[in-house]
């Protein structure tokens, strides 16, 4: 048990800044889970007497144009950030991993699957997401799907690349020549080895999903405006930029901190990764 914990923490102990990333990530999860206990005010409560108040002892992050407490809204915003992150990562893994493995194990089918991935990758990410939003309509779930499709492609490619390398390993060949079937090979040899590279990919996807979701919210095409998401808060406070610049600061800072810390985590995990898989991962990209 202790050994497992040590193996898990090793990448972070080797690089202190990554430990900071991990700490911020855990803090964000904590904030999301216990938001109702942490916040001093109801994030939807309107106080017309305290409109556009700068940060004070009673309102730590100030208030917005309805007098709603920015700190409480920022904390509640972490809930949607977590939902978006988990949603996009799950979607990308649940679709991209089977597609990648299938393509590597059955090259004939694989050719078509990977060409389909190429076609999807020919669309600039946000345009693809916006096109899907037009078809599906606005909403949190649809935003997750629209961003998820973007990262399904990169996840499928990475899985495909790593699986191809694994398939050529001597022990996999040996297992196959001893009569192991494809399902056995995938479950016993491929999937366990995919865990590390996919963990790295998942942290980058989680980070970039935040930026994608914030862009959709900012354009008014993501989460409904009544949900306190960081992107929505930025969109609403945009017109008060000169009168109340702090309104833009805190939600934006949360987006940056979340994406930054997960990028740090991903980077630390990536550096500890088997060099053969690192190559298949390629450059983490925002879009």
């Amino acid at each position, binding site marked *: 048990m202790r050994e497992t914990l040590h193996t898990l923490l090793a990448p972070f102990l080797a690089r202190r800044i990554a430990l900071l990333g991990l700490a911020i990530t855990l803090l964000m999860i904590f904030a999301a889970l216990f938001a109702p206990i942490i916040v001093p005010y109801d994030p939807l409560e309107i106080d017309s007497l305290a409109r556009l108040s700068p940060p004070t002892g009673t309102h730590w992050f100030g208030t917005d144009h309805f007098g709603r407490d920015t700190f409480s809204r920022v904390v509640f915003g972490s809930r949607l950030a977590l939902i978006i992150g988990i949603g996009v990562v799950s979607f990308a893994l649940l679709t991209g991993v089977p597609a990648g493995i299938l393509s590597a194990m059955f090259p004939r089918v694989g050719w078509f699957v990977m060409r389909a991935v190429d076609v999807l990758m020919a*669309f600039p990410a946000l345009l693809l997401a916006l096109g899907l939003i037009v078809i599906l309509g606005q909403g949190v779930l649809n935003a997750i799907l629209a961003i998820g499709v973007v990262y399904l492609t990169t996840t499928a490619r990475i899985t495909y690349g790593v699986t191809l390398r694994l398939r050529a390993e001597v022990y996999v060949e040996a297992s196959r020549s001893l009569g192991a079937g494809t399902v056995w090979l995938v479950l016993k040899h491929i999937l366990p080895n995919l865990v590390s590279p996919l963990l790295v990919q998942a942290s980058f996807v989680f980070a970039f999903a935040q930026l994608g979701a914030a862009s959709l919210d900012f354009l008014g095409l993501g989460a409904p405006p009544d949900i306190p998401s960081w992107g929505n808060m930025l969109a609403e406070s945009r017109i008060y930029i000169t009168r109340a610049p702090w309104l833009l600061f805190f939600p934006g800072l949360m987006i*940056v901190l979340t994406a930054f810390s997960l*990028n740090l985590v991903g*980077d630390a995990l990536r550096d500890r990764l088997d060099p053969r898989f690192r190559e298949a991962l390629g450059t983490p990209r*925002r879009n």
Partner: protein
Amino acid sequence: MWLYILKRLGAAATTLAAASVIIFIFIHLIPGDPLYVLLGDGATPDQVDALRQKLGFDRSLAVQYFSWLSNVLQGDFGQSIFFQTPVLSVIGDGAETSILLASITMVWIILLGIPVGMIAAMRHGSWTDQGLSGLAMLLASVPTFWVGLYLILIFAAWLGWLPSSGYPSIFDDGGLANLQHLLLPSLALAAPNAALILRLTRASMLDVAREDYVRTARAKGIRPWRVVVRHIFRNALLAVVSAFGFTLAALISEAVVTETVFALPGIGRLVVQSILRRDYPVIQGVILITVVLYLGVNLCVDLSYRFLDPRVELE
């Protein structure tokens, strides 16, 4: 060589053909009658009948696709519902802004990303390197619109040095001075992408610095800066050039948000406005053109490998 170019052209054409099917189907996937989608909700039955005749909506999807494709190939992308003018001319109106914005941004990315990445690599392991790498990671995590809003606040609202929004054409009054409208947007757009190029330049230079020929060059007594420029940098450039393909895709995506923040009359803002106006033919046209552009740039990047590094095997 020619065979390689032909093969790559073929692959790009296949991808484009498949993408065009998706873009064509787009109109049919939007909830509602595609004819009303194309004409807008205010269309009269006569207009709907006329369009049905013209596009052959009573015929099979395959026939409709080829009729649409043949129109597109002749430059007919359909009519904008909102402007009641051809889609291509609506997109053309935004082209100047977007092309200039992308070009200035690219200049920033190259001027900031590559030299700073070189400095970080040359001081590998030092505080300078760690600081610059950390900054790059931070910039890669920042939403472009947030940077843009703060640039507006500082340089337009507080200091009053630069305009906060809009862009009058360089062909109007003011001439080239109008380019100052694109200074802040291009900086906001460049920030995360320059960060990516910085990280790539650094990583790639560190990889090349380990090569035997670099050690040989040093052992021969060649001046250090000459080794860096001629032996390391030139070879590290290959990885950096390959990144410009997806940097362009990133620029297109982020320009949508940046142009909205700075109220620039470009193609990115046109997409957002067209979504809100339900002007689907325009969205369809913009997506098609960006896909063509993106595939074209990637093709050029692939082909440029051959010139940058003659050792690259072209299969």
